[in-house]
């Protein structure tokens, strides 16, 4: 891949345990392009959140490193904004206070009115105009997460890191916020890395979907290239001829292959630096004859 805007290079995370050390994951490689939307799917305990925290700089890998825009990650940075699952708003600050806190952290020399105007722009962007002076406690779950998104976007980061941002929301609110995030990312060309449990969410938002096997010793098993067009609409997405091919492929992975992946690779080998890229539903070459049942096109990077 020519453009390695983000490059995860052989990271591992181990925790000390009575039996020596437990490896959550090791030798994990992944590259992301600028402006790309990547979703990670895997069962709980596979280390997805740890990967995200390492990308955020909140956690350190036991081995390996992550390079963002030519620089190795040394710690948290304003270039990488995090949208927390629990929204993590400061309850003693108003909506605009929360966003302004981030803005004034980014641009320390700005005047109060400058900070305010900038914060207001992003509050308007996420559709919270009119609620600026409310406290987080007065907001619904969806509105809180909107504030979290506004706070993350307001610092104009190079990447947005999202840890199951919508999992605590009801289905309707989740749908609206997915639309918003998609619109904003497309408009601003934002690079995004998101963890999710929701297969439909991943298919709707992501350009590529990363599948991880169960932990401990989790592996980045496969990268699914989303075959749906970039200009997809929520209302029609499930009618796309390739939609169910992608969906079934991911669900098959979650239900069976995420557990039995070790046996699968024992048979055909596994190179963590060049994991299989799959375009479900698209048959590319004769090499796919290996997996005719899955109707999946497997190619090497």
């Amino acid at each position, binding site marked *: 891949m020519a453009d390695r805007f983000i490059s995860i290079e052989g990271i591992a995370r181990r925790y000390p345990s009575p039996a020596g050390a437990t490896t959550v994951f090791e030798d994990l490689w992944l590259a992301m392009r600028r402006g790309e939307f990547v979703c990670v799917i895997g069962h709980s305990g596979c280390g997805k959140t740890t990967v995200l925290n390492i990308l955020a700089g*909140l956690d350190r890998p036991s081995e390996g490193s992550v390079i963002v825009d030519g620089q190795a990650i040394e710690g*948290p*940075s304003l270039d990488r904004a995090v949208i*927390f699952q629990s929204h993590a708003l*400061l*309850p003693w600050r108003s909506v605009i206070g929360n966003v302004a*806190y981030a803005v004034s*952290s980014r641009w320390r020399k700005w005047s109060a009115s400058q900070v305010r105007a900038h914060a207001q722009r992003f509050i308007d962007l996420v559709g919270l105009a009119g609620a600026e002076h409310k406290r987080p406690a007065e907001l619904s779950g969806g509105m809180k997460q909107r504030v979290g998104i506004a706070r993350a976007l307001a610092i104009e980061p190079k990447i947005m890191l999202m840890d199951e941002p919508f999992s605590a929301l009801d289905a309707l609110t989740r749908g609206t916020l997915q639309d918003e995030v998609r619109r904003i990312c497309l408009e601003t060309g934002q690079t995004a890395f998101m963890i999710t449990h929701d297969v439909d969410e991943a298919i709707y938002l992501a350009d590529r979907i990363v599948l991880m096997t169960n932990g401990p010793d989790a592996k980045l098993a496969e990268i699914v290239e989303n075959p749906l067009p970039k200009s997809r609409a929520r209302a029609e997405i499930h009618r796309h001829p390739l939609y169910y091919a992608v969906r079934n492929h991911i669900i098959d992975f979650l239900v069976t292959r995420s557990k039995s992946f070790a046996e699968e690779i024992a048979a055909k080998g596994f190179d963590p630096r060049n994991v299989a890229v799959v375009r479900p539903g698209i048959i590319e070459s004769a090499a796919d004859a290996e997996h005719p049942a899955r109707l999946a096109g497997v190619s090497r990077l």
Partner: protein
Amino acid sequence: MTASLTLRAAIVSIALFVAFLLAWHIGTAGTGAVADMDPEYAKLMGATATQGKSAMPGPLEVGAKLLEHLRQPFYDKGPNDKGVGIQLAYSIARVGIGYLLAVAVAVPIGFLIGMSPLMSRALDPFIQVLKPISPLAWMPLALYTIKDSSLSAIFVIFICSLWPMMINTAFGVAAVRREWLDVARTLEVGVLRRAFTIILPAAAPTILTGMRISIGIAWLVIVAAEMLVGGTGIGYFVWNEWNNLSITNVITAIVVIGLVGMALDQILARLTRLVTFPE
């Protein structure tokens, strides 16, 4: 038709108070002439012997005394006869100075303990040993080293206010939610700004709770401390009136001490409400 809970509670409170006053009044009322006595002898014996009057003053006498003090709280007729207002002012000033000094020491140390697991472990044994010492046990040492009774009283207030505030501050700081600290980290907020904009507001309710406990203890201790050091203050006033055998004044002082203590507590409660945030 049910009146509001507040109103009903107030009615019960008043009823209980009236019942208490009534019982007090009846309990301390005279039983009438108890024996025929020579008038000259009766004068010597006083009302307790002749009228069967209780040695305890009744509510009316205490009420009259309270009014008298309220009408003239700040008179000063020499070291042994000062108005209750002056005595209270001395006590409140001592508590205020000792307490504020304690805030200035306890909150920063509490922050340090809360933020650094190393300091937390290192200081823990000292706190555990010093905390249970009765503040009055410091009095002789304070008198010996400071050589000033009034300053010694302030020192005793300082030492007794210290621990609840320090422990609560440390607890509040250590219990700041991980996610708020992560927000500060991802925003590259510096140590000092983090302490003032994240940790302080997050821990403020807990810190204020500690301050409220401390002011209560300080007000308890000042009375005892002033009984020891003497000279001025409401504690000295109580002891002085005991020596004067003026039980009316002693009871009046007890009432006043209670009211001031309540007021101090309410002030801190208001402040706590001010910094508490809904989640």
